[in-house]
């Protein structure tokens, strides 16, 4: 049962050739067979089966929702009422959500089936999915390689066909980079486009929920169901969500920019550079304008990102105190040791590193030199990016400087790891929507993504052009 899009699945469902129950069984079987990937932290088998029965009835009556037949996995930082959610952390290992995130509610309202929760880096902090308290996720295309992160389980699950679509969250590239490593489509919507209500916070001014899928069409469909104003998240925009239209085969010439420095960056794999340049030439031949622009702020983006996200993380993670919910240390004897020991035992090393850095950049005496300066630099990067996008429709780059690397490759210097995000952080610093499209295949056998960033709130142009690009390549 391999399908390209939900439209094909739904056709079969309507014609009675397929049922949701059969789909669920098929996926449960595949999940079972692929346990070695460590993509799922928990499978909601009972839930999925009973919902499938109900939705099959609705299909017969002709009253099913837009997402009937869609099997979805959710990253383990997205709340689903009555189900565990742990952010892949020991500190939340036994936590059960009291409510559903807005995205989950909206997907369920359209009759999607949620089949389980997916492994990720602890509190979404990481670029390899090796910082999960519950073990790394293996890349389905080569089990000796990482999936990327932090939404590694989501990327792996879609790539291995364990669900049609998966939700991830993206703070600096956590949807797009694993999508690139696993050869699937990953979309980060505009900041504020999708409600963050029920998303376990990492860095609140950067985090966005978005989909992984095997086609741009499915990613767009699920994005449109999730997007839009929400009374539970005041940062979710009131702007209307424009519908994408993939039937209109527009040959409208686009204006596309690429950052010259991105393509000459020494960390960029030579083959990925060549393939990106080839794609640029192809687009030019088709009549699109593709031009290199200079962007002297390139080197500052990852530092700005780390200062601001660790600051926000140190505040957001202050809530894990071992008192109201989460793990409490058995060794705690008083209030202070309850906080300190519960947090020390509950958080992993990378989370601690980031909390410590965030505490430092916010601390008195250093605030202006780090946090304050990074906020100013963020404005510069945002305004300069907007200037490029005033003249061009999209900005193109590779998603990641290389393909998926070896699992367990000990990373001694965290700053090397942080450069993973070099091409993706711009979209989070500025809030713009961006996709990674699985357009590349390296001679080492692994896929790599092409990254497109659009204007804020213009997912429509971004997605329609992405679909065109995918269908022509």
């Amino acid at each position, binding site marked *: 049962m391999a399908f390209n899009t939900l439209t094909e699945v739904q056709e079969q469902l309507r014609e009675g050739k397929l049922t949701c129950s059969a789909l669920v069984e098929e996926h449960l079987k595949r999940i079972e067979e692929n346990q070695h990937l460590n993509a799922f932290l928990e499978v909601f088998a009972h839930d999925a089966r009973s919902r499938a029965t109900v939705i099959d009835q609705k299909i017969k009556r002709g009253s099913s929702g837009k997402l009937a037949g869609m099997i979805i996995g959710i990253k383990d930082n997205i709340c689903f009422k009555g189900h565990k959610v742990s952010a892949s952390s020991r500190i939340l290992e*036994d*936590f059960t959500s*009291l*409510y559903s995130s807005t995205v989950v509610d909206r997907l369920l309202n359209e009759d999607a089936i949620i089949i389980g929760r997916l492994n990720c880096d602890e509190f979404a902090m990481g670029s390899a999915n090796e910082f999960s308290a519950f073990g790394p996720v293996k890349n389905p295309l080569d089990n000796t390689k990482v999936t990327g992160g932090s939404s590694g389980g989501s990327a792996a699950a879609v790539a291995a066909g364990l669900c049609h679509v998966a939700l991830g969250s993206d703070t600096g590239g956590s949807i797009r980079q694993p999508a690139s490593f696993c050869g699937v489509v990953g979309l980060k919507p505009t*900041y*504020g486009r999708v409600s963050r209500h029920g998303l376990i916070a990492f860095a609140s*001014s950067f985090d966005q929920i978005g989909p992984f899928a095997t086609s741009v069409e499915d990613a767009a469909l699920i994005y449109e169901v999730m997007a839009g*104003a929400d*009374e539970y998240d*005041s*940062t979710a*925009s*009131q702007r209307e969500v424009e519908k994408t239209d993939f039937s209109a085969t527009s040959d409208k010439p686009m204006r596309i920019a690429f950052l010259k420095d991105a393509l000459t960056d020494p960390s960029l794999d030579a083959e990925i550079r060549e393939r990106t340049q080839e794609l640029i030439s192809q687009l030019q031949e088709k009549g699109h304008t593709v031009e290199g622009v200079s962007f002297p*702020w390139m*080197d*500052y983006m990852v*530092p*700005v990102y*780390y*200062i601001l996200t660790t600051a926000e993380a140190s505040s957001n993670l*202050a809530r894990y105190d*071992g*008192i*109201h*919910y*989460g*793990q*409490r240390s058995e060794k*705690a*004897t*008083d*209030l*202070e*040791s*309850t906080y*300190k020991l519960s*947090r*020390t035992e509950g*958080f992993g090393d990378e989370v*601690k*590193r980031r*909390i*410590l*850095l965030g505490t*430092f*950049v916010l*601390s008195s005496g250093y605030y202006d030199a*780090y946090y*304050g*300066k*990074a*906020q*100013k*630099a*963020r*404005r*510069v990067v945002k305004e300069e990016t907007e200037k490029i996008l005033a003249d061009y429709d999209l900005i193109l780059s590779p998603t990641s400087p290389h393909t998926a690397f070896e699992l367990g490759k000990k990373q001694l*210097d*965290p*700053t090397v790891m942080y450069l993973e995000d070099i091409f993706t952080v711009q979209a989070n610093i500025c809030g713009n929507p961006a996709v990674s499209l699985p357009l590349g295949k390296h001679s080492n056998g692994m896929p790599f993504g092409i990254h497109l960033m659009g204007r804020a709130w213009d997912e429509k142009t971004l997605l329609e052009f992405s679909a065109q690009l995918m269908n022509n390549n």
Partner: protein
Amino acid sequence: MKLTKEQVEKLAHLARLEFTEEQKESMLNDMDNILGFVEKINGLNLEGIDPLIYMSDEVNVLRKDEVKQETSKDDALKNAPSKDTDYFKVPKIINRGEE
């Protein structure tokens, strides 16, 4: 800048974390690396630029101020590591007359 071990200890206390001596050394090393890396932003001329504080340009959306009970007491206590029927339980905070 380079941090001292005392600074790492102070930050750890502020963040309510504890580290062994060995971990302190490794955190110190990592922090020095990371700070050396993020200090690149000192190369930017940011004179006269306002910090970007809010990502959103949305205006307030007002609603009626209605009382709603969305979480019951039982639910709120469900995930507590230690509780009785009405309260979260914490270790003893004040020790009376045992000084």
